[in-house]
């Protein structure tokens, strides 16, 4: 068996947790329990987990506006996350951040980011710190097909090559930047080729295939730890929901998502593979599913019961100066 059973169980649990968390977020948002803008990552779970499963808390990730999956994969507490997206004072960021700004520094989760392209320069900094301090830690940034076109992203890529930083640029290519097709926004035929042009190894993988994605990222991470500099990994994937929860998605073909849920669901693909190979039993995974449903149910119940921030104490805290 090329993968340890424990590894496979962790991978499955993490992916399933993300799926359940996102689906519950959609439901709770629609029910009015989650305010603001929420970008769900269901459909894209395999990439987040493949990227983070081997990382320690001292390895750093920088995330995007679509960051719940990255948080969960990096080990953030789902209870604290649910409270945060609900805006409660016991949330991961005391309710001050919300879905687009979840961060958990202790877990090496540098933050979701509501500015497209905001992350990669910061992740370069984390990688620079690791390199300078000789920690052998690595840093990963999550990027999209859309954020690939932001100047900050391209500057960070070039600098990562120049300084040979241990930074893995993960590109989740879900085919869309909001309601714009990826291949409209990208002027080139292949993002991977463009990224290779910066002078770093660049791989293209099927992001619905956990194993292919994991294997590619593992090589990149090892290279970075060994001082071999940055890598770009473009992983093709499908966004199962809107750009944001509530997006009418008029720009998408009629049966596109319906079909993708049938044939391009990374969780179904994972299950089919591990069952076929005889690596895990369906019953074991079904039992995990049940546990996770209960876990997220509890996260929602705890979130709804959690205290709301108190403006008299919380509005003016955590900032240098309040006039």
């Amino acid at each position: 068996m090329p993968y340890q059973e424990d590894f496979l169980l962790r991978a499955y649990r993490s992916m399933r947790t993300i799926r359940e968390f996102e689906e519950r977020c959609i439901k709770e948002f629609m029910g009015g329990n989650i305010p603001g803008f929420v970008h769900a990552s269901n459909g894209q779970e395999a990439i987040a987990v493949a990227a983070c499963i081997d990382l320690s808390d001292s390895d750093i990730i920088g995330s995007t506006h679509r960051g719940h999956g990255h948080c969960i994969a990096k080990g953030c507490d789902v209870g604290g996350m649910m409270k945060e997206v609900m805006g409660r004072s016991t949330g991961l960021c005391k309710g001050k951040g919300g879905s687009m700004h979840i961060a958990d520094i202790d877990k090496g989760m540098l933050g979701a980011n509501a500015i497209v392209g905001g992350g990669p320069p910061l992740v370069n900094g984390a990688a620079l710190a690791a390199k300078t301090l000789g920690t052998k830690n690595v840093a990963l940034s999550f990027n999209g097909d859309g954020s690939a076109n932001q100047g900050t992203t391209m500057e960070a890529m070039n600098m990562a090559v120049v300084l040979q930083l241990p930074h893995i640029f993960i590109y989740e290519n879900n085919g869309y930047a909001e309601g714009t097709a990826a291949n409209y926004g990208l002027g080139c035929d292949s993002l991977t080729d463009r990224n290779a042009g910066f002078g770093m190894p660049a791989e293209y993988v099927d992001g619905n295939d956990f194993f292919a994605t994991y294997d590619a990222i593992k090589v990149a991470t090892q290279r970075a730890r060994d001082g071999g500099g940055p890598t770009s990994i473009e992983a093709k994937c499908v966004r199962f929901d809107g750009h944001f929860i509530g997006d009418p998605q008029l720009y998408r073909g009629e049966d596109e998502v319906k079909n993708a849920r049938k044939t391009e669901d990374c969780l179904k693909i994972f299950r089919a593979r591990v069952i076929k190979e005889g690596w895990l039993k369906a019953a074991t995974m079904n039992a995990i599913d049940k546990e996770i449903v209960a876990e997220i149910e509890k996260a929602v119940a705890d979130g709804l019961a959690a205290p709301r921030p108190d403006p008299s104490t919380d509005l003016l805290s955590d900032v240098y100066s309040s006039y």
Partner: protein
Amino acid sequence: MSTVHTKGTEMTTNSNDAKIGGKTSIKAYREALNDAIREEMRRDPTVIVLGEEVSGGAGCDGQDDAYGGVFGVTKGLMPEVGRERVIDTPISEAAIIGAAAGAANNGLRPIAELMFFDFIGVSFDQIFNQAAKFRYMFGGKSKTPMVIRGTVGAGWRAGAQHSSILHSVVTHIPGLKVVMPSNAYDAKGLMVQAIRDEDPVIFLEHKVMYNNECEVPDEQYAIPFGEAAFPRQGKDVTIVAISNMVTHAIAAADILAKEGITCDVIDPRTVSPLDDEAILESVEVTGRLVVVDEGNPRCGLASDIAGIVAEKGFFSLRAPIRTVTAPHTPVPFAPELEDAYVPNVDKVLAAVRDVLGA
């Protein structure tokens, strides 16, 4: 005088606007902006719109014009004039603003959209070092007739990076004009002026106001920059408010009117140029000034206006000036915190009572 309605409150625009006649319709702020841009695009083929999702659906299998801007302000323009003039761009704000400025130097009148004005950060050099400085730095030889539109402000639970207002940042910069309409009527007239203006104009739309309706003339009209509106007139206290804060100022004035306190509510409509004369004239009568602004307090518009009045109207003042602003913090996400962050009617009332010593 024409009367406009904002969220159930009545406001009277200043006499300057009374000349606009003809048929009117009830229009939302969003529609008024759309009308202004559409008519200018029909009238002038050099007007173009560019930005992210300004039409939407580019390269996709589903519907074209799927968004028309994420707030729907530019909806329907692309089907009418085509993708050559309503241009969906990659997510590259520096390149968007730079392209608009360069095109403005070369015969077009671009309207560039920053989907959320917070994204100015990514593009700031192209605005303040480039577009804003060309005319002066090139000895008056260069023209940059462009509009940068963006949605601003808190109230949508959109979090720290999608809720800033930032008008004082751009107001600080010579070469830029900064426009902040508080109702649909002004939104239309100011947008027309912004498009026809020869300088770069920053046009800030408050995201909580897009559905606010009032009576708007059907015909195209331009409201000159630097002329305040006077939605309420009074003699006891001057309240200067901008953008969505005008709504709160009017509500406060109406409550106080019932107590026999009359307020002169001034909506400058454009903060650069600023109608400081109107403010000073009002303070001459009232002797009392409250400035209401959603921006952060330091180096903000409220302290700027307070400074102007302290300098030029000191001897009219009968009480210290009071400012009502957001606190000096980023915009928080949680609803309770965000609601406490944004100035509201109660805070305006407290400030007015304070300057009256009541």
